[in-house]
């Protein structure tokens, strides 16, 4: 395309680049700030000297966290929860999605089951009845309870169903003629060609389970059962601003250890940051499969 490079068009392009750069920086700088604070000395943080580079560089807070048995315990609970829930949901969802991707002629119950799933995605009994039910099941202070507390991940089920429907039917028919049953087809034909969608759902599940804090908090009766995010949540000091004076506010600010909190917050994000490159490879296609269809 032939484009006249006038001054005004170059100015507009420059402005566009500037706006994009600023919005990208707005996403990056808060993380850099938190990291810088977590690596700075307490006096530098209190004096407000830290911007995006550590001042009075120290690993002290990270060393302190490594000695914090509760933090490590919560970290471990979160890891277990992620592994357990990812294993359960992938197994259950792949198994269920295969028959649900069949036509209504091959599996007549398909439509009603799918509509029931959609109903469950959009309607719930609310927090209180759900909590009472979980309590009755004995899923309090229970790692298995944390893994299944969110209910059937219907959105991910739909992603699988839509993907399985797009797999070429000839592949399956050839296997049927060779005498393979439905379980054999699922394991040896469907799963191997579905790696992108399995990766997408696995990554979505890992991130969602790692980040979940509320169930971890209300389904645990004491600190020793908290997953990491719930632990971080209760650690960030809750100040009731309606009753404090300005002097008290300054005092509280000195008490709460900003640098230590920043270090904990940063460590809690590391697993997501580590899998983010893999995540990015898959989630774009994952969302497109889920939201916009031909």
């Amino acid at each position: 395309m032939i484009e006249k490079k006038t001054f005004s068009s170059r100015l507009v392009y420059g402005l566009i680049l500037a706006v994009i750069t600023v919005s990208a920086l707005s996403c990056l700088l808060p993380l850099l700030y938190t990291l810088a604070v977590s690596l700075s000395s307490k006096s530098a943080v209190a004096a407000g000297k830290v911007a995006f580079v550590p001042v009075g560089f120290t690993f002290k807070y990270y060393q302190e966290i490594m000695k914090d048995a509760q933090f490590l315990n919560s970290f471990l609970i979160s890891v277990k929860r992620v592994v357990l829930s990812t294993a359960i949901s992938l197994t259950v969802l792949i198994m269920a999605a295969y028959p649900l991707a069949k036509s209504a002629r091959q599996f007549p119950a398909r439509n009603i089951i799918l509509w029931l799933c959609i109903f469950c995605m959009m309607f719930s009994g609310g927090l209180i009845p759900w909590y009472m039910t979980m309590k009755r099941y004995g899923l309090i202070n229970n790692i298995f309870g944390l893994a299944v507390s969110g209910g059937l991940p219907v959105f991910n089920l739909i992603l699988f169903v839509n993907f399985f429907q797009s797999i070429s039917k000839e592949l399956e028919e050839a296997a049927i003629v060779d005498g393979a049953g439905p379980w054999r087809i699922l394991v040896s034909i469907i799963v191997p060609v579905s790696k992108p969608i399995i990766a997408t759902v696995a990554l979505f599940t890992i991130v969602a389970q790692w980040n979940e804090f509320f169930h971890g908090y209300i389904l645990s009766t004491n600190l020793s059962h908290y997953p990491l995010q719930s632990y971080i949540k209760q650690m960030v000091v809750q100040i009731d601003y309606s009753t404090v004076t300005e002097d008290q506010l300054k005092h509280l600010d000195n008490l709460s250890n900003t640098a230590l909190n920043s270090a904990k917050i940063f460590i809690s994000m590391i697993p997501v940051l580590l899998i983010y490159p893999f995540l990015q490879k898959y989630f774009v296609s994952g969302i497109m499969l889920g939201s916009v269809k031909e």
Partner: protein
Amino acid sequence: MRKLSCLTAGNKKHYWLMVLPALFWMFCINIAPIGGVIMAFEDFNPGLGLFKSPWIGLENFKYMFQLKDVRQILGNTFLIAFCKIIGNLIVPVVFALLLNEVKNMVFKRTTQTIVYLPHFLSWVALGGMLMEIFGYYGPINMLLSGLGFDRMLFFQEGGLFRGLIIGSDIWKGFGFNAIVYLAALTGISQDLYEAAAIDGAGKWQRMLHITLPGIKGTIILMTVLGLGNILNAGFDQIYNLYNPAVYSAADIIDTWVYRAGLVDMQFSLASAVGLLKSVVGFTTISVSYLIAYKFAGYRIF
């Protein structure tokens, strides 16, 4: 084909076996609690249980509407959710349009990598970060006071706090929400732009007459689906950021139900408010999906 259907004739019982675990999970965690909503029509007493607690009909619902709290949380929920829906629509569209103009692929890729990231971070971590950054001694207020302005009390003044809630929600998702528009933009044929350029259409005119009509369908679809969430003002975010000083401005249905039910143990009242939210929310989401299906051919499966 006839032979094929003979070979698969006995498959139905295997299909049922395959969906059974999912049905079991859904029944236990999603469906069974729905029975618990009868709590909303009782004066629920945990000692007596669901079936022996006294039945009081619609008393909880009548009481609910007399509470100043409840009128306030309904207002806050609508206001915050509405502002978020509008912001989460406009900002990602504008961002996608701007990013679409960028020709340097390395710059484009890098930007995308960075702006998608906040979507995947938890509100616990982001909430902790926001409290530091916008706190009394945070960098924002240091900058303001350094420039000679008054410090802004983001976590004490209702209006400021609401602004922070809406702004940070849009900030967290704008990159991620732009993905669908970026995909729609790549679907617009380059031929159209070239033809328009030959006809003498400027950049601005091409934007108005080619680009915007090209993504109009996606914009309308996302609006309709977004409006279904008018009762979801964002529990995770508000719960991680608020404090009693800003309840009047930012307490929403979900946070109130949590406090009334699981902190103050008013099980029946909290269930009633929760049930009302579930029913109205179900209606708005269903209607939005229906509209999306009728006018945009949107299908869930």
